[in-house]
């Protein structure tokens, strides 16, 4: 079973040279730590920055320079700053190559829910609805099951939706899966030591298993 860091590490393998990438809050933020050496990637932060750098050294924090998670960060050579409308303009116009975000639920037809639990948690969608509605390539980083052991990969989402038919790839602590255009979670890889049966048990939506399923590799 993969840790959050290992999920992030696996997702990082999907990032290609020359990509502009938007990372959501949570596990997706960790992906920045594992971007393969030797490739050039520009991180977009939707509060208005391209070229997000690492956290500042202690004592060098700048209250005016934060990421979308409100963390203090730095810029890099080649960074640019812009307003919120332009930030979502470049997202809507599909200039951003890859979006990585978290989810509470994903359905077998690619719907995603990650912003609201009615009567319980009302934080808002932030930029998530804009991102999922426009991004050409979205990878969801999520836990396969909730704390009660119930599957979060469902036939149909039970929570209010963030976007419809927009998710194509999911990486969890158990597996890497594609969502097929005609619907269904196609199992691509399993976490080391995790059996296909175990993944089947943890997947409430339709799981498609074809042939031998290799173990995920992080190198």
């Amino acid at each position, binding site marked *: 079973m993969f840790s959050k860091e290992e999920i992030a590490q696996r997702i990082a393998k999907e990032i290609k040279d020359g990509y502009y990438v938007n990372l959501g809050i949570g596990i997706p933020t960790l992906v920045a730590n594992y971007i393969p050496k030797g490739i050039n990637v520009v991180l977009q932060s939707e509060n208005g920055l391209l070229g997000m750098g690492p956290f500042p050294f202690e004592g060098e924090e700048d209250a005016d320079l934060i990421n979308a998670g409100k963390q203090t960060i730095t810029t890099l050579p080649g960074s640019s700053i812009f307003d919120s*409308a332009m930030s979502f303009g470049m997202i809507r116009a599909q200039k951003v190559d890859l979006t990585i975000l978290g989810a509470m639920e994903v359905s077998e037809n690619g719907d995603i829910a990650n912003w609201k639990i009615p009567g319980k948690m009302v934080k808002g*969608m932030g930029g998530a*609805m804009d991102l999922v509605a426009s991004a050409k390539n979205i990878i969801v980083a999520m836990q396969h099951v909730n704390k009660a052991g119930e599957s979060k990969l469902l036939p149909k989402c039970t929570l209010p939706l963030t976007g419809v038919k927009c998710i194509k790839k999911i990486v969890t602590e158990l597996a890497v899966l594609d969502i097929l255009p005609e619907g269904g979670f196609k199992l691509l890889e399993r976490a080391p030591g995790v059996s296909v049966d175990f993944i089947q048990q943890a997947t409430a939506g339709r799981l498609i298993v074809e042939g031998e399923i290799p173990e995920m590799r992080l190198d």
Partner: protein
Amino acid sequence: MINKVVSGAEEAIKDISDGVTIMLGGFGLCGIPENCINALVNKQVKNLTCISNNAGVDDFGIGLMLKQRQVKKMISSYVGENAEFERQLLSGELEVDLIPQGTLATRCLAAGYGMPAIFTPAGVGTEVAEGKEVRNFDGKDYLMEYAFDADFAIVKAWKGDTAGNLIFRSTSRNFNPVMAMAGKITIAEVEELVEAGELDPDYIHTPGIYVHRIFQGKDYEKRIEQRTVRKSEV
């Protein structure tokens, strides 16, 4: 050159009265108009509709206005950092319109560009789409979202001049330029106010035509929400 300078936050907000709609710039606590928020708290105006990406934290920013129940309705994209907000929302004391962040920004932009509405795919098929006109362009659905109609916009800039021209610093720019364009009356508080002519016209982010009142703010706290650092290299 038309002089836009007022004495301070109190004078700048003097005609903000109960029941008006106010836009407030900033993302989280970054780039918020601290001086004007404090002045609104002191003035105790009520029944406000506030358009702002976030709602501050419990004891800073718009959170201070929420605590005093000055806000009737909040229009935001993300309010997760404010426990009092969540409490008022879940108990039904506060009316809240949660809208996608890009939609929020672009509805400001539309107002500043004189366009009545925009079309965006954000929220199609979700509860955000309820009651909204859907139009299909090239096989993809879009929601029609109206330009905002705000009585006042209050923004924070780094530098400004007496003509109302503004320059923002780093990611404290965020919603400030688009909100500055969108208010019927726009108030700008700046860290440094200079004479017209001292800022290079090529480097102005917001032209003074959009700004009606400007003043040099004071005592900026610039609170950091998530102080994240790395170890110094030895």
